[in-house]
């Protein structure tokens, strides 16, 4: 990699860089992810993994039917995932639509739980840059600590990398102090090579986190895609000296899924990323499964969904 410049003035130079990245060995990536997924994590190690995973959850509600009441209830759960057990760590953040940010900020005030907001015409990203910047600015003004933006997949797939790059730069500027997570929507990127290119594009443009998916498109956060993104942040730190976080989101439903992700992090980037500041799990239903497994370890009996709140 001879060109390590972070300023790109033309589509051609950006394309040259992204297409100069080594191709992804699809069979190899799938096999490695599958192999790491078979690791057996039991007893005390599992307990640690469960608590770490809980502390990494971005508890998310992104429905058209979201109400202020639902957001408040979710925030209460974020601060005290299991109200009967104060040992359970709080989650990393709650993630809501921009118009509900103020409600969430109010609800989690002083707890250390961060408020993330999706923005930029989520989930499709099909709008003008002005609207996307305004969307972001409103979320930040309402008190969002983190902004989850979507990239323009249409432009990316059409090869207009500069447009995607400049959009991320503009949104990053609109974020101010808020952390920017760039959603690649890997389910729409078609190839692993594109996932690698989009990861680098988002990091070069200044994203603080790269995130797999909106959760609205299947497949979402698969293990191989997360593996490729983790490799990208590891290599980016080595070549550019800046550490970027990773957030798989969507489709992580069970404790086993979550622990597989943690194994992947540990084996790919090392434990430097095993921290809520650098790795998040975008999910909602996985939290109850983590709590059920935790209770199973405490009581020795299988628990049930009746004993935990919905969202």
């Amino acid at each position, binding site marked *: 990699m001879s060109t390590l410049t972070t300023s790109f003035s033309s589509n051609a130079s950006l394309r040259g860089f992204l297409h100069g990245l080594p191709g992804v060995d699809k069979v190899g990536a799938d096999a490695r992810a599958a192999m790491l997924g078979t690791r057996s994590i039991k007893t005390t190690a599992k307990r640690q993994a469960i608590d770490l995973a809980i502390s990494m959850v971005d508890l998310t509600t992104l429905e058209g039917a979201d109400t202020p009441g639902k957001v408040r209830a979710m925030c209460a759960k974020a601060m005290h995932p299991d109200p009967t057990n104060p040992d359970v760590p709080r989650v990393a953040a709650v993630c809501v639509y921009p118009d509900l940010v103020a409600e969430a900020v109010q609800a989690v005030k002083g707890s250390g739980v961060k408020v993330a907001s999706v923005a930029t015409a989520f989930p499709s990203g099909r709008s003008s840059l002005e609207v996307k910047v305004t969307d972001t600015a409103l979320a930040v003004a309402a008190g969002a600590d983190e902004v989850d933006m979507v990239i323009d997949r249409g432009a990316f797939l059409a090869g207009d990398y500069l447009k995607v790059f400049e959009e991320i730069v503009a949104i990053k500027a609109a974020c101010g102090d808020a952390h920017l997570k760039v959603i690649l929507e890997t389910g729409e990127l078609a190839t692993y090579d594109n996932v690698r290119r989009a990861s680098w594009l988002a990091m070069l443009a200044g994203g603080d986190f790269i995130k797999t998916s909106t959760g609205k498109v299947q497949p979402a956060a698969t293990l191989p895609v997360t593996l490729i993104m983790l490799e990208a942040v590891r290599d980016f730190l080595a070549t550019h000296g800046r550490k970027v976080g990773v957030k798989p989101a969507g489709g992580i439903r069970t404790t086993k899924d979550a622990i597989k992700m943690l194994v992947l992090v540990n084996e790919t980037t090392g434990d430097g990323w095993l921290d809520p500041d650098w790795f998040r799990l975008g999910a909602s239903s996985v939290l109850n499964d983590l709590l059920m497994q935790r209770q199973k370890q405490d009581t020795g*009996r*299988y*628990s*049930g*969904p*009746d004993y935990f709140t919905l969202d």
Partner: protein
Amino acid sequence: MSERLSVRKTYKLFIGGAFPRSESGRSYVVTSAKGEFLANASKASRKDARDAVSAARKAFPGWSGATAYNRGQVIYRVAEMLESRRAQFTAEIVAADGVSGKKAGELVDAAVDRLVWYAGWSDKIGAIRGSANPVAGPYFNLSSTEPTGVVAVVAPPSGPLLGLISVIAPVIVTGNTCVVVASERAPLPSITLAEVLATSDLPGGVVNVLTGNAEEIAPWLAGHMDVNGIDLTGATPELAQSCEELAAENLKRVLRPEAGPIDWLADPGTERMTAFLETKTVWHPIGV
């Protein structure tokens, strides 16, 4: 020309409408009443039991929400499917129990009849267990029956088909879903019955069948917080007692094993159905 090799059936578990192998990868040898090798059956683990409970829980809203008439039709359909496999079940009972072919045929007939009998109860049990209660006020006071939820069933070691039908049918006819621990000694008819269930309009997960050691699996089901009732018919007195103690944690409904051997050919009565029913009472103003 070489002699044809017969194709042997792999007996697996029945969970959520599918036939998975045990998560543990274990199996055990099943022998006939005379001690000859019959087949290898899956030996379910506690995690299979957990998966089965999840499947039963998932199936519960749909099954309990179906009309009683519809549930009756589905169970009647199971009887139809069973009738068409009469010869297969007869052979399996002969192998498992060592009874004569004639006797085994009678047992299969009785099992089919038992299903039809329970199918008829689906829309009638409410009439004998529900009531309009006289109250001192201008109200209709009505009690109606509701299913308990997910019920674990320890199937009897004897009566590989009739006994099994006699414990499953009364649990599901009222709208419960169940996880059945089949007879360890004679599990093969239970998996063949699962094949019948899988092809008879019964939604996946309403009946889940685990084969293996009841001493190993039943306590996990008895302690499981998402199981609402447990039928200990097939449990030994010691196992029944420990399961009942575990079941107390979340106030499961418990059906204790009977003291002596059970005559499965006798009239079963309604006790097995009513053991896993809840009563909901509503007050409604009579108006002017």
